[in-house]
């Protein structure tokens, strides 16, 4: 005490007081500057993170929305009876005998008529004019005729897909400069496209076939759709849900409520936390070795994909289920045991229902994770496969080869024609819509049913 009281007494004579609350000395200024710099680093880091998110999302939206629109050419096609149904008896078998090649003259003459009616001046030959259409145009018309044989002999107005270069031109991806070395389209054809567009017969419109249709070969990006691989993903999610949810919940109940403290329990716990961190590609190797090479399950089948994704999702579901079981207070169990329930009854009748919302939330998040996973699917053959036909029936849905949404996106990103890139981005928009919806449902469930004890 004496020391402290004496020191100030000696000090005033030696030095005038330097620091004040109103005037900072150099050292304080430096420290305060360091403080605000440090804070700025933090803000900058968060800013960079959020900026990346914004860049990513804007990039996806700007690059992908184009896929939902497609350029169409509307033509009046005369379905000549002498070409399509020579016998004139509308027998569907006879009509089917006319190959897609047989429809080419009908389309060619339809374009010629259209050009004359609209008064378009062009030096292009009819064949060159026809080349602005998609290679799928004849098949489209044939499918229409087979579905509506009564229309034969009439003139119908039909909307044809144009090819990907013309579509790219309408969307600004292809320009007159960029096609200098392109063999599939000429500047004259683009001029012709301009004329058709001004006449209003060539226009962009919403393209439901992208969402619901099937994949097309790499010659026809304009006809490719993600619908069939969406079904593949759906069947995989059925498998994951049917296996991962019961197994995951059973495993969590055991570990959380019944497991004794012993070596086996420890091994299980360590295994689960390690499996959660195993690279997903390793699960793909497991699937290839066990399900395909050993059990001879069909390659590329959603069943195999579902099994692999189940093993991958299990740790996620187990971890979240255990957390929600743990959140149910012991008083609930004690009360049930107190009125004479067995331990099993207490868990299944009281704890599990109370933990159900949390389990559901965890399951949805696990499913969302599985839905976006690609790497294991590459190894079990769900890539490099053209998902051109929707599966017929439930069993085929599980067992016949199919693709899945992320695998389809990867497949498109590998193809040479840049028109597929637009479709890959469009596929990502659809995939993200699914993921956002699932996560929103999970958040709503959590908010709605979460109980604080």
């Amino acid at each position, binding site marked *: 005490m004496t020391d402290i009281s004496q020191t100030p007494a000696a000090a005033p004579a030696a030095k005038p007081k330097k620091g004040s609350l109103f005037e900072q000395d150099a050292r304080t200024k430096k*420290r305060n500057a*360091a*403080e605000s*710099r440090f*804070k700025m680093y*933090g803000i900058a*880091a*968060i800013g*960079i*993170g*959020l900026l*990346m*998110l914004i860049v990513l999302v804007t*990039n*996806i939206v700007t*690059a992908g929305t184009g896929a939902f629109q497609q350029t169409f050419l509307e033509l009046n096609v005369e379905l000549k009876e002498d070409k399509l149904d020579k016998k004139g008896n509308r027998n569907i078998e006879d009509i089917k005998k006319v190959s897609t090649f047989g429809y080419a003259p009908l389309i060619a003459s339809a374009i010629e008529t259209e050009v004359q009616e609209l008064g378009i001046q062009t030096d292009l030959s009819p064949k060159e004019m026809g080349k602005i259409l998609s290679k799928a145009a004849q098949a489209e018309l044939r499918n229409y005729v087979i579905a509506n044989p009564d229309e034969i002999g009439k003139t119908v107005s039909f909307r044809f897909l144009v090819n990907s270069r013309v579509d790219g031109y309408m969307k600004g991806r292809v320009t007159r400069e960029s096609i200098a070395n392109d063999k599939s389209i000429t500047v004259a054809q683009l001029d012709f496209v301009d004329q058709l567009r001004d006449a209003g017969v060539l226009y962009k419109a919403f393209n439901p076939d992208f969402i619901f249709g099937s994949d097309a070969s790499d010659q026809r990006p304009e006809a490719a759709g993600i619908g069939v691989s969406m079904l593949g993903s759906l069947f995989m999610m059925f498998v994951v849900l049917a296996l991962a949810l019961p*197994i995951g919940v*059973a*495993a969590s*109940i*055991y570990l959380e409520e*019944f497991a004794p403290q012993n070596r086996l329990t420890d091994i*299980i716990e360590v295994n689960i936390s*390690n*499996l959660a*961190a*195993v*690279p*997903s*590609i*390793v*699960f*793909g*190797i*497991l699937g290839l*070795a*066990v399900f395909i*090479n050993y059990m*001879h399950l069909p390659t590329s089948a959603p069943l195999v994909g579902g099994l692999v994704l189940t*093993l991958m999702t*299990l740790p996620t579901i187990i971890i979240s289920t255990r957390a929600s079981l743990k959140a149910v207070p012991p008083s609930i169990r004690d009360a049930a045991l107190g009125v004479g329930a*067995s331990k*099993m009854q207490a868990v299944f009748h009281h704890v599990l229902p109370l933990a159900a919302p949390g389990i559901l939330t965890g399951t949805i998040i696990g499913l*969302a994770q599985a839905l*976006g*996973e*690609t*790497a294991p699917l*590459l*190894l079990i*053959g769900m*890539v*490099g496969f053209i998902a051109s036909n929707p599966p017929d029936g439930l069993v085929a849905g599980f067992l016949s080869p199919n693709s899945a949404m992320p695998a389809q*996106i*990867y497949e498109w*990103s590998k193809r040479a024609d840049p028109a597929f890139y637009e479709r890959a*981005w469009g596929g*990502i928009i659809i*995939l993200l819509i699914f*993921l956002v919806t699932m996560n929103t449902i999970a958040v709503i469930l959590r908010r709605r049913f979460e109980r604080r004890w």
Partner: protein
Amino acid sequence: MALSWLLLILLAFAVIGYFAGRSRALASAGGDARDLHSLPSYYGYNVALTALVPALGILVVWLLAQPMIVNSTVAGMIPDHAIPEGADRGLIMSEVRRVSNGLAGAVATGALSEAQAGNADADIAELTQTLKDSGQVLTQEITKPILVAAQKYRSMTSTGTIAMQVIVVIVALFGAAFAYIRTHKEFRARNVVEQGVLALLLLAASIAILTTVGIVLSMFFETLNFFQLHSWKDFFFGSTWAPNFRGGSELSILPLLWGTLYISVIALLVAVPIGLFAAIYLSEYASGATRSIAKPLLEILAGIPTIVYGLFALLTVGPALVSMFGEGGALGVGWMASSNAVLTAGLVMGIMLIPFVSSLSDDIINAVPQSMRDGSLGLGATHSETVRQVVLPAALPGIVGAILLAASRAIGETMIVVMAAGAIAKFSGNPFEAMTTITTRIVSQLTGDTDFASPETLVAFALGLTLFIITLGLNIFALYIVRKYREQYE
């Protein structure tokens, strides 16, 4: 009889057994449920479970074991001289299976009678033609040994399947009958059912072990096969990765490991500073409102599938980098030739890892006791001094653990590197060059037409096992550090 029918029959047994057991129990108590040891439904469950569980267990084991037994028996039948040059037993066996499927398909469509399909002395040319006509897929010429093996395969499989069905149904019936007879009002049904359910729960929990064992075994045996065909010295210590499907490949993991580590380091250089500073700001400075907005937004980055990052790297970041560092680019340096480069993959992977580092570090920083901060602030330290000199040193082991977890993520990441890193295996320090990684090579060796007898395909399993061990080691080490650190302040 298809498998689904068998399952339906078993299910029907269980349902019938439930009601039968329940009513027998009630009858034995004279219709008064109070005289029973357990609730009436437990007697029902007892019968249903005893019918269902052993039968299903046998079914699963049988389905797993039968292909193995049939395969090894039939493979033993094929004489060595029947195996052509350049093929092995596995290849012949897949042909045998194909022929046997073809025979089954032909019988199903009626192109062949059962006797014709089983006739070992059948004219092979004629049979091949019949099979082809009925639309069955055959790739090779059918030879006599293959035909005999295929017929044996087919007969063994069908006998096995019939035996399985019979045995499973009998076991289910016996189980139901046994439990039904035991059903009496004194019988302690609840205890028995609960024991059974507990066993099922334990079984479900053991699937985690089974998966790990499956992963290790599936890669281990193929890796052994690989090391029989290829020297392990070249794999671990060689310097060149040059697979050649005509033989004479050099398959060394070192160039791939170099590419993997290089890309991971770049990713961590991006993710660690950003993630760490974001975590510090969010946990030490940000107001509750900022935190509740910024944290979930950052975590969205973690929920985006890797295919999206892959496409982002391939189509956006790569071309953008080329337009900056490439020939005639904005900087005019001409360092970057193609958009596939270490830098492209590393940057995008870094973005992906930001939320991973930030939310783990956030948890760890929050776990540092408030009293330590209060002490430091009370001594006159500024907020940033407190963070740098007190909070961070205290949280350091945990943060190191978080970084290690992020590193293991980066090493095992597949889609980004498959799409954006390139395919050239080499030792190079130039981040603008394309390089390849372990995961990329696993994908490329195992997709497309693969021949599971060549070292070029089998090397993928050795790579996978190495990858598994590396990531597992990192994870165990990281979890150990994190756990140890947590105990310190609890």
